[in-house]
């Protein structure tokens, strides 16, 4: 089965009919890679449909339940973009079959000019880079005003400038900026390491009752990001913002043993009653014997410096670790 039958015809389509022999009952992952549009029917049922006759290089995947035995299939392939060759690959993968390509090599030959990855290294000084971040790798939870801070020691984090929050941290290499810088790009980067995400929304909130939540959405009239200054001695950023009249400066740095990321938050100005920091959020929060807290099924731990006492509260079906604050500096560690 191959799109080579279409040669380089611009506006064209082909219909492929055949039998698919499924070895066992089970779930199969179907992948259709194509230029142009493609529709897959098995047993006369439409199972996949990518209605884009103009698409560049699309890839669609679907998990399908199939019974053992022979199944008639039909694939419609159609394309109207003259600047691309006809290309179609059908790849199937399941418990009983290894990943195998059902189309001929020439139907979807390897890209002769694949993109080179663009990794962002960290030199002898911290490397700062702004980009979009997909929280928990979820495109629907894209953070738009984030900055990655790569530390020469190898402990990196991403700060959400519109929430005054550390969105995630990891160890290893810094970020892969290919999604942002290759071709048109989509404006985002990806941490290069096992990434510990925290929570979305503000760290700072004014909580006067159990029903008051920490702001999840940016409100221009309340929250004003002021950017950051570069600390001369360390090359690290000092983040600045104000929230409802509270002036905030925050420094983040790895602990000396590189075990944790320390957040040092300085509050100035008039601090309204009920001002709190949210230190963690998760399905559960468990106090540990050493005074720290295990967050969200022990994915990470929060340890407060000094005598400050954080408490656990229920909010919107989740647990939150909160700390009442007044003017001054609060320091705590994210350990993972």
């Amino acid at each position: 089965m191959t799109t080579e039958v279409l040669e380089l015809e611009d506006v064209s389509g082909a219909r492929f009919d055949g039998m698919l022999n499924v070895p066992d009952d089970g779930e199969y992952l179907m992948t259709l890679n194509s230029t142009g549009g493609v529709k897959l029917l098995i047993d006369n049922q439409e199972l996949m449909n990518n209605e884009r006759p103009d698409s560049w290089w699309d890839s669609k995947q679907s998990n399908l339940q199939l019974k053992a035995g022979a199944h008639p299939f039909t694939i419609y392939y159609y394309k109207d973009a003259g600047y691309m060759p006809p290309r179609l690959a059908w790849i199937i993968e399941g418990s009983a079959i290894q990943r195998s390509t059902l189309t001929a090599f020439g139907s979807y030959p390897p890209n002769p000019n694949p993109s080179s990855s663009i990794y962002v290294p960290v030199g002898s000084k911290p490397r700062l880079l702004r980009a979009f971040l997909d929280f928990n790798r979820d495109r629907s939870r894209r953070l738009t005003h984030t900055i990655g801070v790569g530390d020469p020691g190898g402990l990196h984090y991403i700060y959400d400038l519109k929430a005054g929050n550390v969105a995630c941290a990891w160890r290893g290499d810094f970020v892969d900026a290919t999604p942002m810088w290759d071709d048109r790009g989509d404006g985002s980067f990806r941490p290069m390491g096992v990434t510990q995400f925290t929570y979305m929304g503000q760290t700072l909130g004014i909580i006067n009752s159990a029903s008051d939540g920490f702001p999840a959405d940016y409100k221009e009239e309340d929250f004003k990001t002021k950017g950051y200054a570069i600390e001369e001695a360390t090359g690290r950023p000092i983040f600045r913002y104000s929230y409802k009249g509270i002036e905030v400066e925050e420094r983040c740095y790895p602990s000396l043993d590189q075990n944790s990321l320390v957040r040092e938050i300085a509050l100035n100005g008039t601090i309204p009653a009920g001002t709190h920091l949210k230190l963690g959020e998760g399905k559960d929060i468990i106090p540990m014997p050493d005074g720290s807290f295990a967050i969200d099924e022990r994915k990470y731990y929060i340890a407060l410096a000094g005598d400050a006492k954080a408490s656990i509260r229920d909010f919107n079906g989740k647990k939150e670790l909160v700390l009442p604050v007044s003017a001054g500096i609060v320091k705590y560690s994210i350990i993972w």
Partner: protein
Amino acid sequence: MKYFIQTGLILSGLCIIQLLASFSWAAPNPPAKTPTEDDYYKIVTLPTPEGMLLEVGGMTTLQDGRIAICTRRGDVYLVENPDMANDAPPRFKLFASGLHEPLGLAYKDNALFAAQRGELTKLKDTNGDDVADVYETVYAWPISGHYHEYSYGPKFAPDGSMFVTGNVAFGDQEWWRGESRVFGRGWTMRITPDGKMEPWATGMRSPCGLGMIDGELFYDDNQGDYMGSGAIFHLKKGAFTGHPAGLVWTDKIPNSPVKLTADQFNAVVDPRKVKNGTGGYNKPENIDNEPNANTLFAIKSKLPEVTLPAVWLPHGILGISNSEIIPDQTNGAFGPFAGQVFVGDQGQSRIMRVVMEKVKGEYQGVAFDFRSGFQSGILRMTWGHDGSLYVGETNRGWGSAGNTTSGLQRLAWTGKVPMEMKTVRAMPDGFEIEFTLPVDKASAENLASYGGKNFIYKFHPVYGSPPINDSPLNIKGAKVSEDGLKVRLLIDNIKQYYLHEIKVDGVKSRDGLPVLHPTAYYTLNNIPDGAKLSMSEVSTKRAMQRRLKTADAESKSPQAKKAKESRQNNSAYLRQSATPAGQMDLFGLPQYHYPAGRAFFYRYCQAQVQQRTYCCFNPQA
């Protein structure tokens, strides 16, 4: 000046030899070699340090003559010695880094300002080591995270406030339709240095080019949905320039200067949201031979907030993806076009020249081709202290005629004055063309030296428009001024709101030079009042000229051959694109009218593009 006089003498000498050698009808003969752009404006490529990728997004000149550049990779460099004085290479200093795809840079009060995707940022060096140590957010705007949501600017207004613009996003299923998912997309914002934002204007789709001309804000957009062709707009507060995406906010924000709502707009201009039967919509395509097609000026009569383009930049001819707008502030150091405006283009790696005049209180004017041959897509331009124009380039995934991905070049005037139309002015009964050099009277009084047509673009939710309603100009007479610098053309079918293509292929300078760029495009939004010419004042002579020898020679040159081949390739490509999609119906698949659409784009848009670029997918662009 001395240099110029000498050159002039040499050229005249050559002409005499030519005269003796041939007996053409035209009195003066051109020099042996027809001059090219390169004889007048040289492109000099700045050497950049190895490994440095300068995908230029913003560019400005510092007080001390250094050029500041910001790149897509988020770096800001200061370039010392950009004109390579004493043949020394320019020196690059990394001033700032880590910005989010900044697409603009401005300098004021010892600080640099850049529009990142989501904010306007002030970069300050507080300890004098030429490295920014404060990245201060002047104002942050929302953004949804769509790839196309670029932000451009700032440009400083005389009062110290700044203008930034925001690209639209595109729909998910309706991937062709510009959307304003959050406020600011499709808008121009005015931001004060202390961080107050005022919504200024909307109707933008891809407002990559901003320009401050005599203290007034201008911007350009390029072909796309609701944008028949690229154009330059004068942006007064409250302007609406045609793309409806931003209108969804006019009744949601408290201080919108535009009152028109999306519903009111859609009631006048059908958004053509036709359901495709599977929960989505079909992509609207151009309707061939459409009766009573909408135009932007016709819409303006119903929706007075519409702002018409001051100058259309016909798509595929004068650019396909317009960028920086920069007035010539060199007082002549850059040649004979002081006070005029240059406009960059990304896709065609080209610079256009624009001259505007105010007629009946509104800006309108003329556009010419100026210089092509840059190595990548032109995004930004700034004047150097040496009087040359620095050009920052990238094609970042869109493709451009210049096929490198980035570039930093300098355009320098050689001191020779090209034979050009210096400007074209609207007259009550035609146009007045002013030339840079006196014309040869015989060629200028001959009506066969002139040609042209007028046409307009459709206004519809379709990507781009073919030119419509075109008709040849009826040129009835020509009057040449005493000094030979001006020609008044009497035309009896000029049309308000239309683009007027005016061709002067047969006009020669007194030294026998043809006009370097012999086509002008004048946008005639208003026809001035005043005295009309009488037939007794004008020449009505019409004599066909014999082909000039140099023209033949030129067509045999390797470049001309290459251009011809490329045109042929393009037309072959068009024929291929136009193959009917009959088979698709057999499958019972949804109807896409794309092939016809594609074909007309290339037919109408790409004829002038020497290298095939994907103009239709050029939203940044």
